[in-house]
Each structure stands twice: as C-alpha cells, then as structure tokens.
C-alpha cells in the first residue's frame, strides 16, 4: 500500500540510536526472549535461572574508561545465599589518573558515529565517498571544503600517457589479437604509443558472410575515438590467388556480400595510423584495409592487425636504440647534401636521412644463384652487432672490358647509394652533425708487389666494412656507440685472358663489429684528509 511505502521512505536516515545506559547494555544477551547461560545481565533470565549459573561471563559493564567518573554496572553471583542469586550494583567508577577526561566539547569523541543509511538521494554521494578501496577516516561533514573539486578537468580533452588504452565512444579501440590460442579475441585494447602488430585466426563461412561482424569494415571504423572519426586511408583488394591491387577511390565502405558463391569484401588486415600531438591528444586516425574473398571450402581466415603512432608534423625515423645501439637493429646512415659547408651550426637537418630503414647501410645479399651479374641488386641491411659475410661468383670472359666491369662491381659491392655518415648513437638526430661518424674509405690491393705499370686492370673484389664501437655511459647500463666505420675495398689485377677461356673469381663483402671499449676502471673518491691544525696563537707567550 502506498502509505507504508511513503512511511518507509520517510524513516530517519541513521540507524537505531546507540545504547549508552550501562544498566541496559548486555553483550552476552544473544538469544532473543530466551535466557543465555551464565549471562548475568540478560533481562530474559528469571531468579530460578540465576540460581543455576556458575559464574558471570560479563562481570562489569562500564562506559569509556578514559572519563574521570562514569557509571558502571556490576554483576556478580551471590553463592552464599540459598538459592544463589544475582547481585546487580550500579556504581560510579572513578578513574584515579590525573589525565582522565573531565569534560569534552566534542560530541563525536566518545562514541562511534552512526553511519548514514543509504537512500535513493544520498546513494551516489555515499558511493563516491566509500566506494573505492580506501577512504578517509573522517567523513566529509567534518571537512570544510567538500565541493572544491575543480570541474575544469571534465571538459579538457583527454591526455594520453604511454600504454593507456585509447578510448572510443563506447569502449576502447580494439586490436584483435590471439589470446591463449590463435583465435582472435576482440577484447585487446590498443595502448597509446604502443606499436603493435598481431595476427590471429577467425572462423568464417560463406553462409554467414554478412553476419560476422568482425570481418566487415564497419566493425573497425564504426567507433570514433572520442572527437576524432576513423577515416579510411586506403583499401587493397586481395584476390583468391593472393594478388593484391590498390583501389583508387577509398571513400566507399565495402561490406561483405555474396557474389558468385564467394564472399567478398572480407577484412583480412587492418592497419591503424594514429596521429598525436606532443600534448598527448589524438588528432587523427586513419585505417588501411586489406579486403579478400573466401570460397565455400574456407573455414577460417587469418587476419593481421597493426597500429602505429606518428607525432604530428614530424617525419618518423625509426630509432635503432636509445641512446646506444640495440643489437639487431639496423645502423642508421645518411648523406651530407651537396654543397654543404662543414662545420655548420644550423637548425634544419644537416644530413639527409634515408627514412626507409632497409636502405640505409646495406650489404650485398647472397642469392641462390651465385652469379654476381645476375644478382639484381638484392641487398640486406646491416644490423648492429651481427657480423655478416656475403658474396657471389663473378665469371669473367675475355670479352669483358675493364672499366665497365670495375664500375659494375663497385655498384654491386656498395649498392646504389652508399652513405657517407653513420650515426654514432641509435637516436642521433640529423641536426647534430657531430653525432655522426664519417665513413672512411680505404683501398688496398691484393698484389703485394707494386706493379710499375698501372695500366693493368684493377677490379674490386671485396668490400670489408669494419665498425668499431665502444661501450659508453654507466657501468651498469652501458650503451653502444659507433666510433669508427672503415670501408676497405680490395682490388686485384685482372689478367687478360686468352679468348674463349673463362675464369671465376669470388666477390665477397663483409661487415665486422669490433668492440674497442676500454675496460672500465672504477673510480674512488679521494681519501678524506684529516685537517688538524692548532690555532695560530696556541703557544702565545712563547711564539
């Protein structure tokens, strides 16, 4: 009935008032309307019950013992009388200490405050105050400035920190990844500034073509990252035999449809490119898709996902270490632009860097057919710390001319753009010219005997790059620093062959990393000197 409901809502907010009368307080009275055994203060017990008790479990009930004088209820059993009865005395107990509380002007001091009962009005405020893992011991009513939270935080755009999940309108930006098994799990949030690349398997079938949400483009660009919409940067269509073609117009949203017993426009890969400012805000988000098709027999597809972060107004150059080189990362190299004076102090880039990390400092890559002239320029980047050697075989016939052969071999050994400078640290910036080490070129000849007529042909047969590096920095965390790079080209004389004969000479190129760090010497502080001097007039009368 509505009257009782209204009455129930109008009930006082706090619980029942605490009992402070010592005569009525009984902690051993646990059974309602029944006599508890050996509980002398139980009001449900009669005199007959008291005669059966052996002892009083609660002999005295007092108030706060810090007070100077307080009431006390003393219960005891009078065993002399026949039958034994309970004796109840109400006395004033005096605290003899001189530090007893004589009076207090602070109501909450002597008893526990009764907590507020939650109602629909104060539930949110109580949840905010007590809902976390810990809360202050003093309730907000004692605190003068409760409403002093600054509301300006609410309207500010979110500032992200490294690793924080990127929030979208409904949840987090998802990067499906394999969890436990290889099957895709959609619950992996993408962390800010965490470049990830994942591959996972998703089960599909042609019948459920339009129903599986995770293979349609809409699933990946539907959620907007707060104020930023996810735009489609490019769409690549992969046919059944694996050939990929880039589509021209990428504005159209292509949803999975069934065409000729194939399900096309299935998302095979998504690459997110997020642009952020240095204040930690995301200002742009773009997604590139790879769409494919499945036929009736396909039960599962492999999807690959990637996310990369770029700071606005910068061109990203991947670092090879911070600051020292990390073993396995490519060595960064660059050129000095033509006509550049040296030394320079300028603000813009003094060195032109190859942003493609695979074409910085490279070495010839051995191919399965070891013919140098058919090598087609395959090169592999030089990774720090990995000594490499590669080579090929050059078949020389009599018809080959010297000069073009020399040039071809030089191109083969050094590659198309052999850099001039190598970064000494993994994170050297292009502006700091002094952080870059010039590559020293040496030429040696295989023949020890110096031929007086130099008209014979010298062809380069080997390129050896020696990278000297040292340990730099603290003992506990030494950083690798490249000190010297020397490229040595060894030439040999090409003897004229009689016509019809062929010769095969090996061409090699190698990279060697040498650690030239001097052993660390511990440094000790100087011993403290004892500075004991007498005051200058110590021997006054005599000196």
């Amino acid at each position, binding site marked *: 009935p509505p009257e009782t409901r209204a009455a129930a809502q109008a009930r006082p907010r706090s619980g029942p008032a605490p009992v402070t009368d010592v005569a009525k307080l009984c902690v051993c009275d646990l059974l309602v309307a029944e006599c508890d055994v050996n509980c002398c203060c139980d009001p449900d017990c009669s005199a007959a019950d008291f005669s059966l008790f052996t002892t009083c479990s609660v002999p005295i009930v007092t108030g706060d013992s810090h007070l100077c004088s307080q009431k006390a209820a003393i219960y005891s059993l009078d065993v002399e009388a026949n039958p034994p009865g309970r004796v109840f005395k109400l006395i004033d107990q005096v605290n003899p200490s001189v530090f007893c509380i004589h*009076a207090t002007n602070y109501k909450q001091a002597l008893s526990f405050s009764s907590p507020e009962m939650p109602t629909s009005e104060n539930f949110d405020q109580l949840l905010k105050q007590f809902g976390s893992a810990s809360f202050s011991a003093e309730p907000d009513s004692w605190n003068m400035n409760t409403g002093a939270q600054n509301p300006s935080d609410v309207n500010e755009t979110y500032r992200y920190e490294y690793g924080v999940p990127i929030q979208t309108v409904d949840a987090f930006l998802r990067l499906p990844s394999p969890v436990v098994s290889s099957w895709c799990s959609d619950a992996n949030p993408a962390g800010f500034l965490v470049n990830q690349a994942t591959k996972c398997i998703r089960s599909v079938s042609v019948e459920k073509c339009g129903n599986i949400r995770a293979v349609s483009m809409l699933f990946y660009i539907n959620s907007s990252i707060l104020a930023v919409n996810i735009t489609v940067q490019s769409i690549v269509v992969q046919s059944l035999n694996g050939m990929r073609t880039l589509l021209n117009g990428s504005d159209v949203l292509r949803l999975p449809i069934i065409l000729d017993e194939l399900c096309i426009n299935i998302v095979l890969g998504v690459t997110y490119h997020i642009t952020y400012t240095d204040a930690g805000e995301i200002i742009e988000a773009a997604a590139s898709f790879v769409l494919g098709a499945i036929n009736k027999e396909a039960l599962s597809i492999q999807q690959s996902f990637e996310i990369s972060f770029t700071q606005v107004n910068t061109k990203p150059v991947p670092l090879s270490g911070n600051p020292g080189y990390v073993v396995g990362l490519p060595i960064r190299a660059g050129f000095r632009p033509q006509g550049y004076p040296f030394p320079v102090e300028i603000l813009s880039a003094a060195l032109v860097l190859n942003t493609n990390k695979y074409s910085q400092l490279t070495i010839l890559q051995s191919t399965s057919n070891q013919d140098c002239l058919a090598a087609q320029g395959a090169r592999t980047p030089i990774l720090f710390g990995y000594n490499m050697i590669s080579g090929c075989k050059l078949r020389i016939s009599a018809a080959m001319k010297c000069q073009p052969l020399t040039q071809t071999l030089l191109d083969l050994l050094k590659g198309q753009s052999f850099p001039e400078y190598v970064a000494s640290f993994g994170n050297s910036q292009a502006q700091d010219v002094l952080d870059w080490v010039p590559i020293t070129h040496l030429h040696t000849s295989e023949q020890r005997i110096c031929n007086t007529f130099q008209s014979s042909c010298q062809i380069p047969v080997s390129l050896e790059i020696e990278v000297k590096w040292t340990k730099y920095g603290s003992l506990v965390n030494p950083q690798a620093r490249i000190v010297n790079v020397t490229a040595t080209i060894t030439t040999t004389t090409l003897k004229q062959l009689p016509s019809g004969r062929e010769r095969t000479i090996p061409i090699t190129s190698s990279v060697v990393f040498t650690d030239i760090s001097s052993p660390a010497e511990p440094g000790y502080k100087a011993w403290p000197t004892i500075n004991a001097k007498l005051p200058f007039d110590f021997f006054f009368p005599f000196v």
Partner: protein
Amino acid sequence: LSSVPLQILFYVNGIYYIFYFLATLAMIVYKSQVFSYPDDFLSPDLTLLFIMAVLEVLRLYLGSKGNLTEEEAPLGLSLVITVGSVILSVYFLVWQTYVLKADVIINAVLLFTYGLESVLKVVAIAAFVS
C-alpha cells in the same frame, strides 16, 4: 613605594607559566595521540595556547616595569591584558576539546594567581596615583 608582594608574584607567575605552557602543550600532544582529535579542533586549541603565551610575556613585562618604575600606565595596561589572559585560561578550563583533570588543576591554579595579581595591581595603582 613599589609593591614587593606584587613583584614576588610576578616572578613566581613567570616560572609557573613556563611549566603551564609546557604541560598544556604536552597534554595536547598526548590527547592527539590517544583520542580522536581532528585538525579542525586541534588548530584552535594550539593557536590560543600560543596567543596566551605571547600575552603572558607582555603582561608580565609591563607589570614588572610599571611596578618597579612606580608608573601606573604600564601597570594599568598589564591589568587590561590580564583580562584577556583570564578569558583564555577559562577557555582552557571549560571550552577546550578535551578537558583532562590535570587541565582543570593547572588552570585553576593559574586563575587563582591571576586573581591575586589583579588585586595587588589595583592596590599598587592606587598607591602610585595618590
């Protein structure tokens, strides 16, 4: 013509007040550790204790100077400050957050001393004026 009992009383008052100040401060620290003493209640008590110390120093200096130089002006000013000290002492006796029995005892002694001093000051002023 300077009142000797008043001077003795000033001297004794000075020594007793040092003891009173240290004892009250120690007891406030004890109370804050043993009982629940939130900052809203602790700061007025401490502030008033330090104000009382400053007033006491001023009061004793002016009174002593007035008594020895036989001038009634500093003595009268000291009497006025005594009124303030009495009010503060009554605060520590009755309106403090926790009044312990020791608080009652030392404040009672202090009030008694103030009363005696006031009487002697009035007598001394009357003697100087006439």
